[in-house]
């Protein structure tokens, strides 16, 4: 079944076209990622789906229901976690959750049962009674996530759920999201970390300037648009010029990458021993050699002509 279907969605903020006729769908049970630099329209798209903003034109269907016309029904199917940590600092985690539960008209007993269950999955047991203002960023995100899934939504919308977490905490968080998927949720999340899109998501839409540049499974995207693999040779720094000349003689496709020399190739495993032998024979033994397969970063670069990381700052 199709969990979410977006068609021809356009959003104008005055003259700014934040979304430009976007169409895509998300299958039930999928973890679907929106990857894009700042200002590419991820938040705008998610807020429209969650019913927080009105689109300029286009349609959104959630499990077959028109999200714009049947707001009340659709809002029960959706769990939305905005980009900002949205909890009341003066209240404890538990008080925050109880408040959210009331917005969904939950039963008191059901609420308690659900908190019990979720605090197990999300590991929030130890700090539910503390005031939110006294919690760490990661703890807050967990409680915020808990608030978004209290009413057992079928479609979970998470806007940059791991921003600001250190890499270890981010990985823990992925586990949590996989756990929720196993619980039966479909997940739409945004990120500007390309490894996150790559490892966490079943399918990814890469966004830029209000459009979806491409969409598909991460592996497929990398295969199609990521270009070739690279072998990166790091010679001793003072010999880098000599090494570069030596490699050019071998008529290889070569680019300088920081302190290294990157060679494009279809068969990196075969190229590595060849490079080592030929450099060593000239007394230019490399300090280190690296094989890099294409990443979603390369996909973005190849499709837009700009590096993802650079656009982000």
């Amino acid at each position, binding site marked *: 079944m199709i969990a979410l279907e977006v068609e021809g969605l356009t959003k104008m903020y005055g003259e700014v076209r934040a979304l430009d006729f976007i169409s895509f769908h998300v299958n039930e049970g999928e973890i679907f990622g929106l990857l894009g630099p700042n200002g590419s329209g991820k938040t705008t798209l998610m807020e429209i789906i969650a019913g*927080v903003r009105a689109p300029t034109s286009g349609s959104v269907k959630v499990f077959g229901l028109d999200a714009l016309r049947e707001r009340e029904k659709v*809002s029960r199917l959706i769990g939305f976690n905005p980009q*900002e940590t949205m909890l009341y600092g003066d209240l404890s985690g538990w008080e925050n959750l109880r408040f959210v539960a009331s917005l969904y008209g939950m039963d008191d007993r059901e609420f308690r049962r659900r908190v019990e269950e979720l605090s197990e999955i999300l590991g929030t047991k130890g700090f539910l009674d503390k005031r939110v203002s006294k919690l760490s960023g990661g703890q807050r995100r967990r409680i915020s996530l808990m608030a978004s899934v209290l009413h057992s939504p079928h479609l979970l919308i998470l806007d940059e759920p791991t921003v600001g977490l250190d890499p270890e905490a981010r990985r823990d968080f992925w586990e949590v999201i996989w756990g929720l998927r196993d619980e039966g949720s479909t997940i739409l999340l945004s990120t500007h970390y390309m490894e996150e899109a790559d490892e966490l998501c079943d399918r990814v839409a890469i966004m830029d300037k209000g459009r979806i540049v491409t969409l598909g499974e991460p592996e497929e995207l990398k295969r199609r648009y990521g270009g070739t693999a690279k072998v990166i040779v790091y010679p001793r720094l003072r010999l880098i010029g000599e090494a570069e000349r030596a490699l050019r003689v071998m008529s290889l496709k070569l680019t300088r990458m920081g302190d290294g020399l990157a060679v494009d190739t279809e068969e990196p495993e075969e190229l590595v021993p060849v490079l080592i032998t030929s450099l060593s024979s000239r007394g230019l033994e490399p300090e280190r050699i690296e094989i890099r397969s294409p990443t979603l970063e390369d996909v973005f670069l190849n499709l837009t002509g700009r590096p993802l990381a650079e656009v982000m700052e």
Partner: protein
Amino acid sequence: MKLNPIIEVARKDMLSFFRSKSTLFWTLTFPLLMMLLFSSMFGGRGAMFTIAVVDQDGGNVSKAFLEDLNSTNVTRLVWFSSESDAKEYVMDGRADALLIVPRGFSDNLTSGLTAELRFYTSEDPQVRTAVTNMLNGFVDAFSEEYRARALAILEEYMPPEIPAGGRNLSRDIVISFLRSFGKPVRIRIASITKPELTSETAAYWKEEGHWITVMLAYTLIFSGMVGAASLLAYEKLLGTVKRLIASPASRWSLLAGKLLGGLAILTLSQLILVLLTILWLRPELNWTPLIIPVVIAGDLASLGLGLLVVELSPNPKAASEAVTTVGIMIQFVSGLYFPLSFLPDPLRAVAEIIPFTWAVKALDGLLVMGKGLESVAAPVISLASALFPRWAEVE
């Protein structure tokens, strides 16, 4: 049992409100400080100087003198029968000065001799100067009046012609001659401030019942608007308002919850403020249940106004600035701290059409002047109607 969003919104707002220290300062501490400051500066209870008094004379004139002195706003007299007790009282720092009226004070004055007062002040030079000046001024005024009275008596019993050095002086010449001794130089004090306004303002601050009005009205004007605005602005700032909108709870129930919570917060603050004011000032009031509709209508109007300002503002920061400015302005023009006659005409015209001004008038009317229903109807209707723009905005 189903959790009710209206009640939970209200509960959540109340918790946030009472857990925030800065909010508590502005809603509770600040108005109390104002009350303590102003009422002790101008109020009858908080006279500027306390003077211990020993009346060794006990005659009619000394009694009149002390009563006059006591009836000025600046002094509070404490009577003692023994000089040593009175001295101790001053030494303890409980009074600023000691005034002794020696035996013979009344007799001396009535028999045309000079009377004497003994006066001791505390060593603090500021208190010393102030209290001495005050007493000198009072004694001058008293002496002048006394001389005028003595002359009047003299005038009555003096024969029309008085022999002096072989000539007869007319009574009028003698009297005007004597009068020049009594008050050789007369100063007419021109009015620098409009005297009737100053005294009206002072009366405002002195009237203890009015402070109950201030407590109720401060809360409903300032705390209500700023509180409602900051609670909503805070949601916008946090982004939590997005969670509210994304939820199936209706906008109407969210608004109802906000108003309910706001009303509970304001009522609680008002109870605390009024109780403390009563304990401190012990005002004489005409308590009547008629103040309840005025206060509730006022609370709701100001909450509605606060929410409306946030809705209309481009961002939460602008909203809270707007609401604070408007809140302070309304406080000053609504007759809370100054009588309306104090305001320049254009400002006064504005003040007259603000429903909060009517609320202040109605509360003073009910509590201080003992008026009835007639002072309630207009403000209640107008205050309640101030809510309407907000309802229209939401739906």
